[in-house]
């Protein structure tokens, strides 16, 4: 009887410890969200999403230019980064022992751990310094370089989960190897790959450092990727470090918008995956 009580006691203590760990992990996130809502939600209005910034010292205005800039640059980064990442991932999973695959896997892991500011400096050296002007495109390239290793590694891992028997079944039906890879393996893995890609998008959407050296930021609405371009993280950075109270409030609001965008992307990824998983079985 005593022993049973002691066991139950141990079990309860351990459960408590684990729950405390979960709380410690989740609480900061809740605090961040709470602070953002408290300080930023008050400045949110329709104008905030649709208007340009007001001149310093005046009230009103919004960050429409930064939202457009972020969408454009992240979109372009996806167009560059996702195909390259998926292609590299397919190669690495199809030829796992190939030297190039081993090398690219290693490089991808190193890149994944590289501070994003280094990528920004890299893009500055090769694009901005050569063109002699900042541009949204340079920002997109920097973001794409951040995406490639993430997308590549998730693609590879997801493809590894596709049962080998499916591949064999396709080959036994007379499928060529390329067809087996594209029509059977890649399609089966697609929901997982898309989730990985969307999570990578969510990650890069909030990057500030690589954009500081490339897109630079701008006070004007612009859709020309060849010009300096505004982005939400840059706006947060500029406003938060500016001298005006008004700017600080806008920085909070812009940060809230950014986090909401990332949140929506994440939820979208989950929803899409679940839907596709249901359709695909």
């Amino acid at each position: 009887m005593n022993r049973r009580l002691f066991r139950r006691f141990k079990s309860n203590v351990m459960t408590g410890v684990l729950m405390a760990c979960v709380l410690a992990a989740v609480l900061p996130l809740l605090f961040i969200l709470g602070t953002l809502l408290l300080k930023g939600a008050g400045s949110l209005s329709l104008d905030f999403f649709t208007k340009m910034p007001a001149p310093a010292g005046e009230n009103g205005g919004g960050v429409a230019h930064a939202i457009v800039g972020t969408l454009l640059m992240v979109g372009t980064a996806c167009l560059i980064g996702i195909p390259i990442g998926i292609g590299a991932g397919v190669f690495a999973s199809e030829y796992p022992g190939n030297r190039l695959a081993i090398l690219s896997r290693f490089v991808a892991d190193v890149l994944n751990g590289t501070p994003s500011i280094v990528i920004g400096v890299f893009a500055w050296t090769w694009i901005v310094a050569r063109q002699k002007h900042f541009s949204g495109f340079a920002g997109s390239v920097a973001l794409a370089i951040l995406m490639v290793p993430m997308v590549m590694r998730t693609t590879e891992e997801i493809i590894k989960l596709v049962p080998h028997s499916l591949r064999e079944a396709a080959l036994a039906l007379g499928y060529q190897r390329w067809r087996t890879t594209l029509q059977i393996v890649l399609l089966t893995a697609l929901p997982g790959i898309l989730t990985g890609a969307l999570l990578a998008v969510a990650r890069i959407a909030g990057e500030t450092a690589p954009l500081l050296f490339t897109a630079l930021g701008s006070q004007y609405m612009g859709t020309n990727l060849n010009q300096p371009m505004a982005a939400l993280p840059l706006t947060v950075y500029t406003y938060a470090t500016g001298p005006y109270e008004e700017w600080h409030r806008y920085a909070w609001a812009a940060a809230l918008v950014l986090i909401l965008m990332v949140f929506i992307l994440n939820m979208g990824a989950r929803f899409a995956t679940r839907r596709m998983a249901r359709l695909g079985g």
Partner: protein
Amino acid sequence: MAEATAAPMVAGEASVAPAVTRPRLETDKLSAMYGKFTAVKNVSLAFAPNRVHALIGPSGCGKSTFLRTLNRMHEMSEGGWITGRVLLDGEDVYASRVSAMQLRKRVGMVFQRPTPFPTMTIYENVAAGLKVSGRVKQAELRQTVERALEQAGLWNEVKDRLHQSAMALSGGQQQRLCIARTIAPAPEVILLDEPTSALDPQGTQRIEELLYQLKREFTIVIVTHNMQQAARVSDTTSFFYMGTLVESGATRQIFTAPREEQTEAYITGRFG
């Protein structure tokens, strides 16, 4: 009659059909290797058309590897290579002018676990092997798919949900779907690699009954670790042990009067 043919095991029981002189599929001193390891040693075996041929033997005896050399799936395995010949209708399938893709349309294969393609519907699964060989007319495709599903004994169960995912089917249904997918492109030979080992008894029974129907049109080679199954479904049986072909003959003879001691020991359950 059985003794009349040169190849050891062409003739089945005399009552099934008269002995056919020319085998559909034949191996000639076939050895199969993984790198330096030899999994199948020097096997010469012939498979007469429209019969069910069973390959039995303990795990690791090389029967599955042997089966996979027949449609050149063995060469897809890590380090897989062969010596000797495999003849389909007298033609060497390993000759350089024969493409493995073309061969596999003539020699279909069903695997141990059901392998429906998860991204495809039931209909698309059956049509998969047809579409790969080029453009087929829609109407023709529909007819072939229906016929294949009927032959696989699945039509009545799926005719109202052809365009739903194949993953909702039971294991036994999935395996019959895979059989339908295999027979849709009208191969000459069907290879089955322990097709019922992942199924329940009922699913197993359906497949066994099916084999009896299918042999009218196809030549069937089935690997099984289940001796009762071999005895029930096959016309000829070949016993493999440690990579060599120990004995081969009409199923009744193998199970009632084996010539080799090892065969007898295995079928009476003394080892394996």
